[in-house]
């Protein structure tokens, strides 16, 4: 290993990188774009869902119910006196997510102890869209009625519990989606750029015939590899800096853990992705294939890592695949450090699988890389 040759290689990469404005812009632009899209556009706890009331009983309780729905924030009443057909149509064509039907003589039956039913129809085609609103409904209606059923009617009020259930929503009390998504994006963005840039970078040298020229010089394959990927480590950190800054400034995502530990985890994670990139570059024949293979790896890294969907909600086999992916472990690390303030104690069980991953993939990559040269 010669530092001079390594430096020559790195210097060349930087010049090429500087000249390739589009790629450079993409590497900074992608994190910003994704952060803005995911940060501002995605909300797993949707509010203000369009609601239609079909009312057959215009009474005091009905008005209280409507008010309570509106006040909860989940329901936005767009029509408070529709007929059943209009309501069904609105549900079918997506104009409304909820239809609440208040039967005739609801108030009278209630007071008589007739145990009347309210019907809530929800567009549950997307369970995530309506789930939280439905869950809130039961207690919402009960407390609304409790307010009206007082005095002589007090016996009709829904019973209060004999004990209290206290819920502490730790690490993200307000359930803000961004707190989960923004740190998670760090893993996705690094996976995407690191794998693609290494895979493309090395494949480009082979495809354009410069690799042969390189290898005819005294430079060693390992020096070529390290020289090529070292600049991307730096770019990875630039991306991390951009994400952390935006997380703080735009989304107020808390950062309770140690920055040093996070930066160390980032290093390990970048290495893991670079080894994948090298392995891809040594199995493909051209840049198009390198791109396709990168996406082939990127997809499970987004879907099975717990970035978008709850990891524990996946079937067992999918969890096993997820456990192999570096992004899964990195997500736990970065969310743990940023939101929970995890330290080394909690971090090493996730760092260890990453190190094993690096070792295994690097061995495969170097073996394959050697073969391509011959």
């Amino acid at each position, binding site marked *: 290993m010669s530092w001079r040759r390594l430096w020559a290689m790195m210097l060349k990469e930087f010049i090429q990188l500087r000249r390739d404005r589009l790629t450079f812009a993409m590497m900074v632009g992608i994190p910003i774009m994704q952060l803005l899209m995911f940060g501002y556009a995605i909300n797993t706890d949707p509010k203000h869902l369009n609601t239609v009331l079909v009312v057959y009983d215009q009474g005091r309780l009905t008005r209280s119910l409507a008010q309570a729905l509106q006040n909860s924030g989940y329901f936005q009443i767009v029509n408070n006196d529709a007929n059943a057909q209009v309501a069904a149509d609105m549900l079918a064509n997506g104009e409304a997510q909820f239809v609440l039907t208040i039967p005739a003589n609801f108030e009278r039956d209630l007071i008589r102890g007739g145990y009347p039913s309210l019907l809530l129809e929800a567009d549950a085609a997307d369970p995530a869209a309506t789930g939280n609103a439905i869950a809130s409904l039961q207690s919402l209606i009960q407390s609304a009625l409790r307010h009206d059923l007082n005095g002589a009617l007090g016996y009709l009020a829904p019973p209060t519990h004999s004990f209290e259930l206290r819920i502490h929503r730790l690490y993200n009390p307000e359930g803000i989606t961004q707190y989960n998504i923004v740190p998670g994006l760090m893993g996705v963005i690094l996976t995407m750029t690191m794998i693609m840039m290494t895979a493309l970078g090395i494949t480009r040298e082979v495809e354009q015939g410069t690799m042969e020229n390189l*290898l005819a010089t005294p430079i060693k394959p390992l020096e070529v590899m390290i020289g090529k990927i070292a600049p991307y480590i730096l770019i990875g950190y630039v991306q991390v800096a951009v994400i952390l800054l935006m997380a703080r400034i735009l989304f107020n995502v808390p950062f309770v853990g140690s920055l040093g530990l996070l930066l160390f985890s980032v290093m390990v994670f970048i290495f893991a992705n670079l080894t994948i990139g090298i392995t891809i570059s040594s199995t493909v024949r051209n840049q198009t294939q390198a791109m396709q293979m990168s996406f082939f790896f990127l997809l499970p890294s987004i879907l099975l890592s717990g970035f978008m969907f709850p990891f524990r909600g996946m079937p067992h086999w999918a969890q096993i695949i997820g456990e192999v992916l570096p992004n899964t472990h990195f997500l736990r690390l970065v969310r743990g450090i940023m939101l929970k303030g995890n330290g080394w104690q909690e971090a090493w069980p996730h760092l260890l699988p990453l190190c094993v991953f690096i070792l295994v993939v690097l061995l495969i990559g170097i073996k394959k890389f050697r073969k391509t040269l011959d």
Partner: protein
Amino acid sequence: MSSSSEYAIEVANLTKRFGDKVVVDQLSMQVRKGEIYGFLGPNGSGKTTSIRMMCGLLTPDGGTGQTLGLDILSQAADIKREVGYMTQRFGLYSDLSIRENLDFVARVYAMDQRKQRVNTALERLGLVARQQQLAGSLSGGWKQRLALAAALLHQPQLLLLDEPTAGVDPQARRDFWEQIHQLATEGITILVSTHYMDEAERCHRLSYIAYGRLLATGTPQELIEQSGLQTWTVSGAALSELSKQLLALSAVDMHTQFGNALHISGKDPQALAQALQPFQIAYPHYQWSEGQPTLEDVFIYLMQQATDNFQTAGKT
């Protein structure tokens, strides 16, 4: 580095397989110091693979060899430092400027006085004014000159040029060969692979390989003599009718058609002359002359022989 040997390259029984395909088969050849050695053969004959083995880029599967006195099996890294190799495709970076490319090569070879060497190379190239231009924007001829300058930057004793003039215009080719001869007079050994016959004739010695095997070696004149061919040239217009008839003759081993000339070659000069006698009388308006084959005739003949041998060998 041992300089006692008379040869810059000396390989014996060099063999390389890719999968079960033998690309280079028992190749033995010697390149003397200071000579321009031509390496000829059709596409896919194993020229590039042989050159790669000689410069330590590929490890042979069998055979032994020395390049500049260094063992090609165990001292590949040292060979790379001493040899200048110009690849078939433009091997420099098209998104780096001319100067940056040369700078990069100088750094990779860990040269001292890098700036000065690069400046000298730029001056010799006549590219000082255009040094900031991207290499990718150069014409084919200039790219090739730049690649040669890069290969010479570390002052190698041996230059390996793999089809250096492919896709280069005739004027640039001529200039290039003048430079090659200039380098040879400075004592640099040059091994050059080519398709062009006029380039083959500019070499001191030649090898012809096909299907990974060495078919003939020697000076251009020796190759012509070794072939044992006698060649008749028939010139005139509309030769295709005659060509068909002549080809049917058993004494004719090979014919090559040029625009208004036909080369008829045979192993047995007497039989050939006899066989052509009646045609000379029948077609008196053509010009008939007997003489030596050209290098091209010899190579096409060698190639035909090799194809026949290869096919029969393949059947048994």
